[in-house]
């Protein structure tokens, strides 16, 4: 396909067009991922997550600069929420990433979450494959601003960075379960505001107490994405984690779990679509459940059986 050849040759216009096809799950998009998949598996995929306003986009911008300084090509997928009311979205992450507009080694794409929860977008995996295949060394996924429970990003990346800012809660916050347990690297941003060292201390205490089977101890790094202070430490920690994954054999396990998560998501979305498209065949068992003639579980099993037979 001409678009694929051009994208592989470094043409950003073709790359952007393919991204649109993949984002919208078109025939061309599916063909592109199929043709390119064998070329994937080389990039380091890093997730940047954290609450709204913690400085994720500004940190991504600083990391782009740092990674470009040693010649790495950087792809960014930045996700913002879709309005549940209108289906529209304002995607504003790019506003903090405009510095490197003339740089062919950087590609930034804004994505709307389009109904997917967990801080990601429906086509995230296909778009990661695209950027990986055309040769980006570092792929950064910036999630929607998240709270404590959105942990989906951990299932699509090699390295998960949780960005927090000082003075956003007391010590109890660091005891909470969820994304705190999954972060490979903690970043305390906005060091210029004060209070950063206190938060870092609490996080370090939490990391030290956490039961862990792996030899990786999540580092806690204080930085200021605006001034650039500590950004080299953040990128060094990201690289350290990649080295740890490779040396320990953990990388192969992560590749496995990333593949498993993507395949499961596809199966789940196929079942979703079948249920939507075949509401007629779902209706009788559901009616039986409402009339108490059948249990919900029995009806579900009946539907699964009929879906499998109908194809």
């Amino acid at each position, binding site marked *: 396909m001409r678009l694929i050849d051009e994208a592989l040759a470094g043409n*950003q*216009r073709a790359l*952007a*067009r393919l*991204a*649109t*096809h993949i*984002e*919208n*799950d*078109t*025939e*061309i*998009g*599916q063909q592109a991922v*199929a*043709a*390119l*998949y*064998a*070329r994937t598996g080389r990039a380091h995929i890093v997730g940047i997550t954290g609450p709204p306003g913690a400085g994720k986009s500004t940190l991504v911008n600083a990391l782009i600069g740092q990674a470009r300084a040693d010649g790495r090509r950087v792809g960014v997928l930045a996700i913002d929420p*879709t*309005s549940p*009311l*209108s*289906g*529209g*979205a*304002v*995607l*504003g992450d*790019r*506003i903090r990433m*405009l510095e490197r*507009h*003339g740089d062919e080694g950087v*590609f*930034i*794409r*804004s994505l*709307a979450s389009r109904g997917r929860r967990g801080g990601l977008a429906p086509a995230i995996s296909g778009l990661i494959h695209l950027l990986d295949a055309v040769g980006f060394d570092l792929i950064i996924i910036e999630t929607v601003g998240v709270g404590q429970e959105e942990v989906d990003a951990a299932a699509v990346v090699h390295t998960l960075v949780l960005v927090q800012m000082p003075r956003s809660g007391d010590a109890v916050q660091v005891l909470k379960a969820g994304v705190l347990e999954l972060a490979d690297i903690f970043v305390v941003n906005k060091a210029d505001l004060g209070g950063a060292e206190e938060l870092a201390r609490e996080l370090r205490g939490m990391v030290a107490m956490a039961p862990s089977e792996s030899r990786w101890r999540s580092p806690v790094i204080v930085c200021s994405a605006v001034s650039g202070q500590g950004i080299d430490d953040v990128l060094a920690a990201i690289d350290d984690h990649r080295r740890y994954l490779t040396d320990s054999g953990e990388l192969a396990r992560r590749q496995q779990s990333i593949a498993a998560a993507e395949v499961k998501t*596809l199966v789940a*979305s*196929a079942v979703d*679509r*079948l249920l939507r498209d075949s509401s007629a065949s779902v209706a009788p068992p559901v009616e039986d459940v409402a009339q108490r003639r059948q249990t919900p579980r029995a009806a579900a099993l009946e539907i699964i059986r009929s879906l499998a037979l109908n*194809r």
Partner: protein
Amino acid sequence: MSTSDTGSEAAAGWLAPSERSRPIRVLIAKPGLDGHDRGAKVLARALRDAGFEVIYTGLFQSPEMIATAALQEDVDVVGLSILSGAHLSLFPRIMEALRERGVDDVLVIAGGTIPDEDVPELKRLGVAEVFGPGSSLRSIVEYIRRHAPVRDDIAQ
């Protein structure tokens, strides 16, 4: 060197291209040096509420920044708000920067304080429509709906 992608033929229909209908994507940017982005923000919000995906890049954008964003985001529409009076010097550079990057099929619209007598020149440069002060948000939304380019290879 493609990887096997078919799986069982019988089940392939389950994951056929969903061709989900695609929101219109619009880049809203403010070229030049005036610091007034209230109008651009209000418009971004209105376009979101109309169901569009709006990439908002804010103030002080150079022609190159705008063209790169339009290129990488693969938008359908570029909306530019100018209140500095520099439109006659900025728009030729923006249209040129878009052309240089092969972005030749976007709908470019302009808003802000642009005198009527300058509108023909902007249209000659390739700006599709100019929305001056007092234009209703609804008229802009409707204009985009009617004129956003239709891509024959992607459902809209």
